[in-house]
């Protein structure tokens, strides 16, 4: 069963990861629940998600101004995660839905979702706000462990991803999870080469927070 779970983890991650950006978490086998649903192949295999569950997940993502709780998402288990992944991996789905799915992954506790978030945050060609939300979710989930991805995001071609990375550093700094002086020095260097005024302003704002 563990081998099967590991395989499923890899399959899920592979469905999104074009080039693995972080080592697979060694806790993946423990975090990923055993699943009886069969993996199906279509180029990249993934979990079968019941249509009614996927519809339910999509409706939950459509709240006007409410966000479903962490308990709701966690209650959906591995199949719920797979449903979110299937939304994210389906370019034909509305971009607004995919953006919300990326943010909802912050509530999933599995190592699989971390791999997926790392991939989404940096994937070239991805919608910039999907990546931005993935970065936000990853920072919330991983704290300073997300720093490798955050630092790479600082050099992303997409301005909103870079701004998200700046804010992520600000968040980690405010929480005392990273060295404030080093973070500030890093941001000053980033600012010097930042082409977008609004990102530079965000850097200034983060630097001003003590």
């Amino acid at each position, binding site marked *: 069963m563990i081998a099967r779970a590991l395989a499923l983890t890899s399959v899920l991650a592979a469905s999104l990861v074009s080039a693995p950006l972080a080592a697979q978490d060694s806790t993946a086998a423990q975090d990923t629940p055993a699943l009886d649903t069969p993996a199906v192949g279509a180029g990249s295999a993934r979990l079968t998600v019941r249509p009614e569950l996927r519809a*339910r997940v*999509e*409706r*939950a993502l*459509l*709240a*006007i*101004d*409410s*966000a*479903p*709780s962490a*308990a*709701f998402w966690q*209650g*959906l288990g591995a199949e719920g995660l797979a449903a979110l992944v299937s939304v994210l991996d389906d370019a034909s789905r*509305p*971009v*607004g*839905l995919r*953006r*919300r799915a990326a*943010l909802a992954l912050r509530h999933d506790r599995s190592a699989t979702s971390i791999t997926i978030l790392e991939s989404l945050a940096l994937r070239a060609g991805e919608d910039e*706000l999907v990546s*931005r*939300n993935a970065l*936000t979710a990853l920072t919330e989930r991983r704290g300073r462990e997300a720093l490798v991805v955050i630092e790479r995001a600082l050099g992303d071609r997409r*301005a*909103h991803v870079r701004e998200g990375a700046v*804010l992520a550093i600000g968040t980690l700094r405010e929480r005392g999870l990273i060295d404030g002086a080093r973070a500030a020095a890093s941001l000053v260097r980033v600012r010097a080469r930042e082409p*977008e*005024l*609004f990102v530079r*302003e*965000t850097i*200034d*704002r983060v*630097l*001003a927070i003590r």
Partner: protein
Amino acid sequence: MRLRVAPTSTAPLVLLAAVTLVGCYRTNVRTEPDAGPPTPDAWRAPPPDAPLPDAWSPDAFVPVSECLRDRDCPSTGTFCIQDLSLAPRDLAAVPLRCGAPVGATTTGLECDSNEQCDHGMCALGGGCLAPCVTDDDCFSDRTRLDLLERCTRVPVVTSDSALQFANACVRWSDTPAEILANEPIFVTRFTTERLPVEPLRSGARLVHYVADARDDERFVSSITTSEGEVVFDAFGLGSERQPLVVAPFLDFIPVLIPNGDRDFAVGTSFIAALETSRTTTYRRIVMDRTTFGTSLDLNFYYVGVRPPRAGEPPAIVQRMLRELEILFAATSPDLRLGRMRHFVVPGATARRFEFVEGDDEVGQLFLLSAGASRPSVNVFLIRSGADFLGISGGAPGLMGVHGAQGSGIAIGLEDLESFLPMAPENQLGTVIGHELGHFTGLFHTTELDGTSVEPFADTPLCDLATNDLDGDGMLLPDECTGAGAENVMFWGPFVPSPRFSARQARILQQSMVLR
């Protein structure tokens, strides 16, 4: 049971309840050390000796100009005007110099360009401006409360790619002529104190407590009549529907009376118990209205989304307005859309706010409405909100006051547009109608987890115990069919042609923004 908050009087749970109450709207749960009471003008007039790098921060603005207000210009017939000879510079302070009036339109009146205004400054929100340093530089004749002004930071469009900022005089409130508004009264330094609310002069009353500080938590925990009858209790856990609800938000506390099935006689007095996490200072603004309004004016701000062309809003906005008109027509034959104005946010400000993440960002976005010059609701059309399709500055929002953190609603237009192929008809109208409902004082009929603070007898509830068929703790629209999912104020969209109830329509039409 409408609220799932244990009854208690202890402060931590009071604040927990505040967060619970506001639910899906906007909250500010940051806790800052008590730095003592702010000066009354702290949030309006920037401290000249404390430059901060954030161009959008009201506290960071330090203009360097030949003049800062008219009285810096001693020559007869000269004003402190925008120096239009200088090249626009995005996010910079509007450069000022002494000179003859630029245009013929005077401060506070509507404008479409800087050149129309006597001081050469037209706010992003379409009103002519005069520069200032403090409230003393603005109109202060207390016999004309409708014209009473404050000095605040206002965005000014200086080119297609530049938004600059000026300290300028704006009216304290912009309400329709039939609204009776009082002079903003200082209420200083209270924590968990009881403040009187004056006797009702009419059928509907809105009281705003506008904070001078933005960094504490605050909410109304109870309202009682002067005879001791409890008409609202945030911790009242009875099974009855709350007869009146209030909501706490960032820099203001709104109290709306009535906001439920219960009517109160003219002359009824109330005591509102306000809870704050620190000593702070408030202005109390009381608005009364005696008649139902019929016409709603909207100011649209385009933030990183397709702008109007040749004065015509983009097709998606035209469709939104058509659907909103349909919704209004189905709500009441007397309810209709009024005059629309459209403003494009340029430059780095658009880039920053086209994607909004978190309550502070939403509040900062709404500050851009400073200088809007008429009774209206500000509608910010952004690309995407991190966790919302639409959001209101409050329930109710800061009706009649532009340029504060609760002064409008925002719609994630790019996200919403992407959903349309999978949605039934009229969803654009539903989302903006839903947020306008919040802004005028309406709550969700039922929250997605089954809780509710909505008080009307004619809006069915969707009870978690009987309607959550799959037991996942969440009430989806298909589980609430016939139990409120058909209402505009249900938490989720994409129910075909939802409607307001008659009681909700009454709140809409009593709101302080309808003409």
